[in-house]
């Protein structure tokens, strides 16, 4: 039984095939990169996995269970956490309250939720800002809050949607460190990223898509030498 499997995902928006027959498998414990140029269907793939969009056809199988017909909140309960590319902080709540709200999916009492939230905040390095309002945070902290909130739901699989975009070099290093730490703590990660040296350095395997279709899969080295991938990113002259 595979840990996570996307089987022939198809999603049409009107006449546009945003995701067209994309299949991949993710092994437990790895960091799996999802790359592709702008508009290639990466975020749509995430939305299909987390149940925000419904599949036109195909299957999403998580720990042996078909999940593509479940509502988003049930998918989260089953153990798939996600972050949003356009961050969605709960603005008029403090950072701590943001994370407590997420922790309530695993525990029921206020005390337990607070404890779990504080643990997660500590783990993700948000302690210095825990009492600030989420809307007052700069972008780097907001991105980190997205990850923290997702981690507070104790996911087995975490979907990270461009959590490094807009960060400066120091922040970037910290973000990479955190993602590795998450993997080492036992959470499997699927990551969408545009910054090549980030995705190349942390992914165990990478899946590349363009125009909603798979153009390559393999280790970072393999994908970097893949003709179709180079063509998609740099144009035919370089391929």
């Amino acid at each position, binding site marked *: 039984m595979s840990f996570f499997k996307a089987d022939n995902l198809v999603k049409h928006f009107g006449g546009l095939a945003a995701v067209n027959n994309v299949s991949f498998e993710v092994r437990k414990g790895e960091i799996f990169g999802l790359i592709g140029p702008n508009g290639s269907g990466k975020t749509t793939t995430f939305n299909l996995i987390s149940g925000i969009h419904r599949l036109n056809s195909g299957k999403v199988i998580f720990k042996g269970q078909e999940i593509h017909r479940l509502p988003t909140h049930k998918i989260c309960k089953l153990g798939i956490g996600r972050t949003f590319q356009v961050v*969605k*902080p709960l603005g008029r709540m403090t950072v701590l309250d943001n994370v407590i*709200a997420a922790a309530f999916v695993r525990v029921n009492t206020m005390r337990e939720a607070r404890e779990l939230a504080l643990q997660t905040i500590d783990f993700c390095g948000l302690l210095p800002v825990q009492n600030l309002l989420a809307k007052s945070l700069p972008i780097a902290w907001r991105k980190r809050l997205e990850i923290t909130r997702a981690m507070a739901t104790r996911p087995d699989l975490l979907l990270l949607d461009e959590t490094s975009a807009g960060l400066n070099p120091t922040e970037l290093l910290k973000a990479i460190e955190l993602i590795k730490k998450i993997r080492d703590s036992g959470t499997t990660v699927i990551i969408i990223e545009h910054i090549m040296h980030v995705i190349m350095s942390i992914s165990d395997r990478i899946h590349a898509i363009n125009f909603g279709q798979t153009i390559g899969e393999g280790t970072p080295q393999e994908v970097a030498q893949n003709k179709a991938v180079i063509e998609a990113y740099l144009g035919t002259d370089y391929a």
Partner: protein
Amino acid sequence: MLSEMKKNLYPLIFLLALAVFPFLAREEYYEHLVILFMMWVIIGSSWNLLAGYTGRVSFGHAAFFGSGAYAAGLLTYHYGISPWWGMATGGLLATAVAFPFGWITFRLRGAYFALATLALNEVLKDAAKIAEPLTNGMVGILIMPTFSSKLPYYYIIMAMMVLTILCMRLTVHSKLGYYFVSIREDQDAAESMGINTTRYKMISLGIGTFWTGLAGAFYMNYMGFIDPSVVFSLQDISIAAVLVGIVGGAGTIYGPAVGAFVMIAVQEFFRSGFFGVFKYFGDKTGSAAFATLSEFVKSAHALGFGLLVIFVILLLPNGIVGDWGKIKKRVFRVKTVG
């Protein structure tokens, strides 16, 4: 711990003052005002749970208030059952009306949900007008009040108000409260955090409408008379509930209490012609102009409250309680730490 005690101190002192108030005032008129005030605290608080905490603004809370009032009135009118039994059924009927309504309309977001509540308000009002065999239509329902004194009503509504506020506090400081606010801030994020947003919006609606229905049933008992245009009134109940919430501070526990106080005060200030100032001058000078002016002022109470709301929105967008820190700084020149 100390700040926690201090937080509870003011409401407790206020409650104590309310408890002894009838013995000090000894006038039915003031008792009546305070009864109305306390009823509005209940309506405002339940509106606030839905709108202030869950972010689903209701422009039709009269629908639930009226349902509660009619539930209490009809049982007495048709079956002779004590209208106090109607208190329980009033709350439950309001919730029973709310559930199918919420189930259908919660897929609407923002202003569209608010418009749907407005529609529900009007639909129920017309239904109560048309269903004459059941509701007596525009003639209304008259029942004999249980008590001739206002005192029993005073303490009943006071108990209800305390229960409402305790219920709100418990709710807000629990998992429910966190879920409601999460839904208010971002429904998609909430859903991806494992929150069944539909279910929790229904729970918020259920609790909020239950207390409003209860207040409606109390109103039936207290006034002894209802008709569709009174209890399903758009401006006097639905809009007033919104204003009470906004003036006091949506999304704060004690905001609706402050808002209710301000509303009743402004209303009576105008209704009594600025506490009889015009009448006084009219009598003194013998000029008829003052009497006319007094009449104008009496019918302008809605305008007065409307102006107040405009000022509150412009200067204190989070309401009086929500912007208390700002008021302290500006008006009392107190420097707040942090």
